[in-house]
């Protein structure tokens, strides 16, 4: 007979006050500092993660490299639905993504894009789907989340800044902001099972000399910053 505490510990959706939701299956982000703050210590598996940033290029895609590389290594597919730019294969290959298991979908229409996203989430089991919807309703987000849950997929939606003010059923919502010293500040707007913790500071030192980078040193390293800046006043 299982004890009550074991039952409580393993029920995935039970909110238990101060502790983050245990039992949330997650895929490690590859950034230990970020993992420490996320329920399940990683990207939520079988749920939607929203990455909100005012402008592209703040590191919102770079954060996913580890998880996407792991997905490929496990024999599963990464599907990009209507990215606004051209994915550069040499770079993706360099960061460990398996090009053999990358699918690019181009629809050219916002509605068809959402449809394709849903189809991709419903298809098979496992893998990751990434989309860049300009506008998406609460109901549609909910459907995507249910589809992701049923097929145990990682779902990442990249959204513009105004999405931060909208309500969303996504399991995890991160907002990225440029910080000092070439770093990025990640606000966790919403996560399952607990009150959102303090913003996470991701420091991204760059080498001035690109030759060093070419010699094999990782160009971007995510390390805990020297000190946490104060969270932005709302």
């Amino acid at each position, binding site marked *: 007979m299982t004890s009550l505490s074991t039952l409580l510990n393993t029920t995935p959706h039970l909110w238990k006050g101060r502790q983050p939701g245990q039992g949330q299956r997650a895929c490690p982000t590859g950034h230990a500092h970020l993992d420490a703050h996320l329920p399940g210590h990683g990207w939520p598996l079988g749920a939607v993660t929203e990455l909100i940033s005012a*402008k592209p290029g703040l590191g919102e895609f770079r954060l996913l490299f580890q998880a996407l590389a792991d997905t490929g290594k496990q*024999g599963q597919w990464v599907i990009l639905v209507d990215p606004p*730019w051209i*994915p550069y*294969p040499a770079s993706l290959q*360099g960061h460990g993504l398996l090009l053999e298991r*990358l699918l690019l979908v181009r629809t050219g229409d916002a509605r068809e894009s959402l449809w394709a996203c849903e189809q991709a989430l419903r*298809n098979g089991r496992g893998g990751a789907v990434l989309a860049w919807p300009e506008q998406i309703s609460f109901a549609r987000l909910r459907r995507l989340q249910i589809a992701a849950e049923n097929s145990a997929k990682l779902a990442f939606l990249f959204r513009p800044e105004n999405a931060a003010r909208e309500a969303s059923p996504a399991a995890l919502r991160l907002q990225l902001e440029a910080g000092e010293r*070439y770093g990025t500040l990640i606000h966790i707007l919403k996560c399952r099972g607990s009150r959102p913790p303090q913003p996470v500071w991701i420091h991204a030192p760059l080498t001035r000399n*690109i030759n060093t980078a070419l010699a094999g040193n990782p160009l971007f390293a995510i390390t805990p910053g020297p000190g946490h800046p104060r969270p932005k006043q709302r």
Partner: protein
Amino acid sequence: MRQALQRLAAWCYQYSSQVCIPAGRHGLFLETGASERLLGPSEYIGKRLQQELMQLGYCSMTGSAPTPEAAWLAAREGLHIAGPEQIRRQIGPLALSRLHLESAQQKALERMGFRQVRDLLRLPRKALTRRFGPALPDYLDRVLGVRPDPRAMYQPPESFSSRLDLPAEVHTSQGLLFPLKRMLEELCGVLRGGDNAVQSVQITLGHEADDDSLLPLGLQSPAQDSDRMVTVLRERLERLRLPRAVRTIRLEAPTLLKFNAGQHSLFRDTPAEQKQDIEQLAERLQARLGRDSVSGLTGVEDHRPEHSWRPRALGERADCIAQPHRPAWLLLHPRRCMIRDYEILAGPERIESGWWDGRDCRRDYFIVRDRHGSTLWAYREYKPGRGWYLHGIFG
């Protein structure tokens, strides 16, 4: 009728490897003794056949017996004769008109006062031969199993073709879904029987006066199950505009390929199954959005970033060098910019190339940061023009 029988024979190949189309009769003979262990007694096979044929739109009667001719008689009555000794007993009470005899012989026998088959069976052989010739007693012997009754077996064809004349004109493409589903089911039955698969199917819609409309269905890999084909069909039908009402539908599968079943695991998580799932997704998306909507990526040997990649078909190998210091995203077109708006973080990386196709260039690439904090990839062009451009985003 002949064509329909041919198709049905091919379809029945799922249930029996010995199928025969008797000349001049509207029916088929199937040998089911060998399939009894797998499919159950002949009664069950008969019922199953009737049900499945009903779903395809055919009304049928089935019966079974140890000999073909006796089975023919049994089918009319829906009998299932278990053993040779019971043939006499079970077909005895049948009316004489049921026998497969020439009409002249039938009439003669009736005039003589014979009504039931058992009356005929009781007559001595010699008398029958003298009166009607050797054919009639030979037939009776074959019915009873006294004489063997070898038949020419049907050979399944190398292609499939079926045609349906619609009972009423169909004006909407959705109205075509039901008849097409049936035809695809029939095709899949034939495929299963012959252990074949198809990768493309051609549907031709006939109108009254205009030229036929063509609707090709293509799959990513050979398939045997109708669900995949119906999924693709649904998407295509949603996009189809009918110029005129449809009167006839023709379905053709000109090449039948060998089918490889492959292992199925419970959770569908082997790489081969993942690939299958992705292929089905690609089929669905391409059916609705066009062939170019789904692709993979691969590298091209070229120093110029905009030429160093191309889309690839899913079945093709992906081959690319790894360049982690390059940005994850390239802008669709390089965009002119003013370098004073940006802070240079790293660089330059000289790229000089392309003299052989007339688009040669000389560029110095820099990693830059803009005032919003985005990390971008910009270059200074020396050839062909001069200026600063944005080319990529370090997402």
